């Protein structure tokens, strides 16, 4: 398998204080890879370092052998991001939000951009909502619109920062299914930051667990495998809560 992302002995944090150290992992093509951990363990910080929003304190993060900065100088970034809040540009319509990355980076022929954006919006189930403004959308629709924007430049990697945060369980599961369908259909690699066990079990191929107290990763593997045989009792305990969560969520969905 080809490694799309290589993380090599990376430390991340703010100022001089590392939040996580010694992170090394290779993420394969078309894999759904989850970054999991307790609150404040540095999941989103690692994602910010991977996407170039902050600099890693040490180590290297490579996309197909090149750093983010090297990839950016050659045009479009190698990834799209679904931010936790959606981060849609509020002064633009849904369609403009999706066409804007294409306009800014001169992606594809100008005449084709609107059609491409409409296709991406149809993929996420927002056909017919193109002219609406973000403020008039529900939380789930906003996330899906942001997902369409993240797909605007046909990225090789899709980063999802807690995609189900703020969504009801039913919308969250639908979003999970959508991510899986997009991965299968488009062949993209997905890096997911989450602490939703249902998302983890239903879509993640592998996960890394960042321990907020030890300030280092303590487990790497598939969720099912780690639930049974992770060295860290914290990881086993975290993953073992799934049954109870599912029952509660099923109740909510009912």
């Amino acid at each position: 398998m080809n490694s799309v992302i290589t993380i090599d002995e990376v430390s991340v944090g703010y100022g001089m204080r590392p939040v996580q150290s010694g992170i090394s992992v290779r993420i394969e093509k078309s894999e759904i890879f989850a970054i999991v951990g307790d609150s404040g363990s540095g999941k989103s910080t690692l994602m910010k370092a991977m996407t170039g929003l902050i600099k890693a304190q040490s180590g290297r993060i490579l996309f197909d052998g090149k750093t983010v900065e090297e990839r950016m100088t050659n045009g479009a970034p190698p990834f799209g991001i679904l931010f936790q809040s959606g981060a849609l540009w509020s002064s633009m319509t849904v369609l403009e939000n999706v066409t804007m990355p294409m306009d800014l980076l001169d992606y594809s022929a100008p005449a084709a951009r609107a059609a491409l954006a409409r296709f991406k919006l149809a993929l996420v189930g927002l056909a017919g909502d193109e002219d609406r403004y973000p403020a008039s959308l529900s939380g789930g629709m906003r996330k899906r619109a942001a997902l369409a924007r993240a797909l605007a430049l046909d990225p090789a990697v899709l980063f999802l920062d807690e995609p189900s945060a703020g969504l009801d369980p039913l919308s969250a599961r639908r979003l999970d299914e959508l991510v899986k369908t997009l991965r299968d259909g488009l062949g993209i690699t997905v890096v997911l930051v989450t602490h939703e066990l249902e998302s983890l079990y239903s879509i993640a191929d592998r996960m890394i667990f960042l321990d907020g107290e030890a300030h280092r990763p303590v487990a790497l593997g598939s969720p099912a495998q780690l639930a049974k045989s992770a060295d860290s009792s914290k990881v086993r305990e975290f993953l073992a809560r799934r049954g109870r969560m599912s029952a509660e969520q099923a109740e909510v969905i009912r």
Partner: protein
Amino acid sequence: MEAADDWRWGSVEAAFLARILDELRSGSRERALAGVPPELEKLLMLACASPRAAGAGATTLPGFVARVGLRARHDARGLRAFVSLLGEVVLLLPRFAMARAKVRGAEVLEVLAESSSRALVIVAVVNVLMGAILAFVGAVQLRRFGAGIYVADLVGIASVRELTPIITAIVLAGRTGASFAARIATMQGNEEVDALTTLGVSPVEFLVLPRAIALTLLMPMLYVYGCAFAIVGGLWVSASTLDISAAAYWAATRGAIGGANFAIGGLKAAVFGALVALLGCHCGLQAERSAAGVGSATTRAVVVSIVGIIALDAVFAVCANALDV
């Protein structure tokens, strides 16, 4: 500790008991809790297990000198970020001139339309009143020497050269600069700025440049408009208190203002416009990602803009004096 079977407790009683338990060592605590209802015991153990109750994580406020130092370091960082933003805008100007910058023309026009239409009434009112006040003050003094007609010179020169650019810029700082800061700070909080950055698009190019260009173009226009109203304010008071005719007042004003004063005022207006836009955007970009951050960015934008406008005006005064214009 012992409690009667029918004893009922609330958070006040629980907090009091937890405070007593804090003082005891763990072995003594268990003995002390014997006889306490199990629900309350759980609550008290929970309170004692927290780091604060155990005395861990206690924070002390830094001393006065340390706070002054931290504040100075924070302000120095802010100043460095502003200089960096200013430099980036200057470097982007040639790209903008060659239509290669990632600036949406519609955004510039939108900012222009929004900022101008909402400022027209307040700029007119403030300048009419300022012209009238100058005329009142001048009339009282100049009438004593039979030099009432020089009120036109006073109002004309003072408003065209100094007061109209400053007052119009302050109005713009309070309205438009503050709204730039609030808008961009909100975008920071909603990760909209991060969404731009991850596309490889500079927020300065996309958000700051159009606003700076719009206000640099808008301010000279508002300045001319404001000058007209200041002169009308002066005329209104002069005609009513000094019996000066409109034609005589206008002729005296035209003679007094001159091209140099008008050019200096116009140049100041353009520079103040750019300053208000840059400071508003800078405060927005530096804002903390919270609702309180939006509020403090807005306040800071207005305060630093007003101070900046007056400081720049002083620089203009020194330069004009040195150049004898």
